[in-house]
């Protein structure tokens, strides 16, 4: 079977057509669509960047570009929003919840995808139904849960990491997503794994997860974005800065700098930067999946 590099290039050449001309036209169309699409998705965003570099007059005067970029806005936003205070909290919260989500969702998704047990359909429907309740309703019962768990367990939950991370360690979204990918793994692999004397857990770790790395990375990424941008819930369960995330810093800063559009934008860009960097460096892994690992046999 192909080695990694060859595999990738094969993917990339799969639209190759003998007629070179046609390829050129196709390519031109592809680029056109991609560039137009990119422009639409990026323009509002570029405007954010542009405003974040303006002064107040320009920001509120409906201008498109700043005359001289005010880099100082970023410094000001960083300090005013006390991002340094909240940054590490967000990192910790994100790592704990994403790590937990990975383990728990993978196990449950594997059971749904590859194992047989009574009540499978029922449990899966039940799982999906948890997605269907509007969030406004869930805040009070979930607050009751974390408050009570904190009062009967040795570790307090409110104002502490459990309330910020444990509720997000298993989600119907993650289980459903991984199940879809696990289900596509050919049966033969499980059969041969069994001949090798491998059990379910080992098969999951050694074969299923690596083969689904694209989905796993996707789950990590969205877990990261979700945890990083979460706002309403962290505000509800924290009363002190000890565990408040970066999005709280942004919000309290917005209250203060409400009218100062340029600082608001600078703050928003600072908060999203870590995720963009993360995605930039990991996006390669999202499509590598089978191409690099290949099938045994």
């Amino acid at each position, binding site marked *: 079977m192909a080695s990694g590099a060859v595999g990738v290039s094969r993917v*990339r050449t*799969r639209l190759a057509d003998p007629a070179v001309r046609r390829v050129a036209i196709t390519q031109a169309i592809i680029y056109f669509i991609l560039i137009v699409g990119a422009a639409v998705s990026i323009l509002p*965003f570029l405007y954010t960047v542009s405003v974040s570099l303006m002064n107040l007059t320009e920001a509120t005067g409906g201008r498109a570009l700043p005359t001289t970029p005010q880099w100082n806005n970023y410094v000001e936003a960083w300090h005013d929003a006390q991002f340094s205070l909240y940054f590490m909290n967000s990192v910790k919260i994100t790592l704990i919840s994403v790590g937990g989500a990975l383990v728990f969702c993978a196990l449950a998704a594997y059971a749904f995808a590859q194992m047989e047990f009574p009540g499978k359909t029922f449990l899966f429907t039940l799982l999906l*139904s948890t997605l269907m309740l509007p969030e406004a309703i869930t805040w009070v019962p979930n607050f009751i849960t974390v408050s009570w768990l904190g009062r009967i367990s040795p570790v307090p939950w409110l104002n502490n990491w459990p309330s910020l991370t444990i509720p997000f360690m298993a989600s119907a979204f993650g289980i*459903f997503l991984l199940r*879809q990918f696990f289900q596509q793994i050919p049966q033969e692999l499980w059969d041969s794994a069994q001949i090798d004397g491998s059990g379910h857990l080992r098969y999951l770790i050694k074969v299923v997860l690596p083969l689904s790395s694209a989905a796993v990375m*996707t789950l990590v990424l969205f877990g990261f974005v979700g945890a990083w941008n979460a706002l309403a819930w962290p505000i509800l369960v924290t009363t002190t800065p000890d565990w408040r995330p970066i999005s709280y810093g*942004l919000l309290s800063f917005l209250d203060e700098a409400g009218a100062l559009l340029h600082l608001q934008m600078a703050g928003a860009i600072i908060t999203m930067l870590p995720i963009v960097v993360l995605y930039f460096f990991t996006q*390669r892994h999202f499509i590598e999946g089978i191409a690099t690992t290949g099938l045994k046999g």
Partner: protein
Amino acid sequence: MAVQNWENDLHVDSTASQHAAFRSDLQQQVRAAPSWFRGRQGRRLREMLLAYSFLAPAFLIIGLFGLFPLAFAAYESTLRGLNKIVGSYDGLGNYVKAVDNLIYILTFWIAIGLAYFAVTTIARAVREHRQENTNAMRWVLPAIVTATGAALFARFVFVLLPEMLLIPSKLRGQNNTQEAFRGLVVETWWLPKVQIALWVAIILLAGGAAWAMRVNRSVARDSRDPIYFVPFFSAGISLISGGALIWLTWNEINAAYAEALEEGVGLELWSQIVTISAGFLLLLLAWRLWESAGHRTSNTGMAVRLVSAVALMAGAWVLIAELPRVVSAGDEDWWNGLMATVFYVMGTVPIQLGLALILAALLFQKIRGQTLFRVLYFLPYVAPFVGTAAVFRIIFSNRPTAPLNSMLDLFGADPLLWLGEPSGIIEMITGGRIDLGPILSGPSLALVAIMIYGIWTYVGFDTVIFLAGLGAIPNELYEVADIDGAGGWAQFRHVTLPLLSPTIYFLSLYAVIGTFKAFNHIFVLRQAAALGTTDTASIVIFQAFKRDTRYGYASALAILLLLIIMVITLVNNRIASRRVFYG
């Protein structure tokens, strides 16, 4: 490959469970296990227990933070009281406030649906039992006992829940200490009625399960007889819950009649239920006829069926036209909210998914700047919406010099109000000359602007997941297609699409569920000038819950929304189950 030979051997077996069980046979020859876990049935049991242990951690968390809110909402929806978690019992009162008498028709039909499900499940088992001489019937009693146990366990939850939720009010004031809290929890747990409810449920559950185990053991170890426990169990559960629902509705209707009698007003609940139900039955029948018409070979037969289908539909329409009168006393905000929600879902999901699929397919090609494009498309989803909402407020501003209005100006068009425009877009396009009514005039321009914002945000999200799905398609298939000389489009149509179907299925389901309860993007952009045309169901629920603290009413609305999403998900599943292909 070896697998194919096994499959030939297995031609008698069709269900996946047997397939899996057979496979584990191989392994079994090597390893010995305790007697319970020996043999075919034992292996099933072992896999079952392992699967449950895999599910346990996730379901513990989801149970606490996903299922508990569901139970909480179901319970709250039967209560009334401002800012009261344990209010006074109001039966279906909150639902009646929201959708008027329609709720009686709904509960009635849900109960019928549950009964229908139970009957078909049992009928299928019985048919198999007769045809293949399996051992279905011996599962009936243990399954029914366990189902009763499960239903009683649900009852136990709803006995315990109110008692537990009363603890905070007992704690209020000066004795609010951790010890007092723990003491009250223990005290509540040991309340006689809680304990009785618990033990009755546990005894039935355990008894049923043990009985089922015994039956399971009495089945020959290596027999391939399917286990009929689940179908009978679920039939039992649906019969019990359907019965409970009917009982509740019956009581509520009688109470409503008694009240009406007291107040001296006429009430026509029953006739309404009959009328509307008959309408929908006719519609169902018409649809059946229409479908069967397609299979007819003779032209006259087809024509007769089509004509009678149309006639039935007309009849159905007459009856269903009663509906507005049935729901007339419902909450107008709620109906408007539902309409806005439907507009929002229909306006965002197809566009968002279509765009994302195209982009993902293109981004997967060999192109320059692939990395850059992927990052660019992802940015909108990552940006905190407090920031992007501010930008979209500017873009969609009513100011004549705002970005979109300046563009309109270039084309010589008048500036629009965008986020502050309450008129429907179809009405605006037709120039408002015809009175189209609220549904036909379409979503307001304000809502459309918000939809664009939603699409803009989520295309990146969908694209990333599509990319992951594309990554999971083995290269060999494309290589084979290349050798077969299939062109780009043919490859996309015959290789990519089918293999991507699990991802498409996932995303479409997730997007529909997500947009039905979409909140944040709407909430940050809504303006009073849109006169409420942007208030979707989730906004109405939010206002009832948070602003007005009408927990009971908000929960009832949430349950109604959940039912709608559930029905749509089931329909989606039915369609998808024929089309999704898992490699």
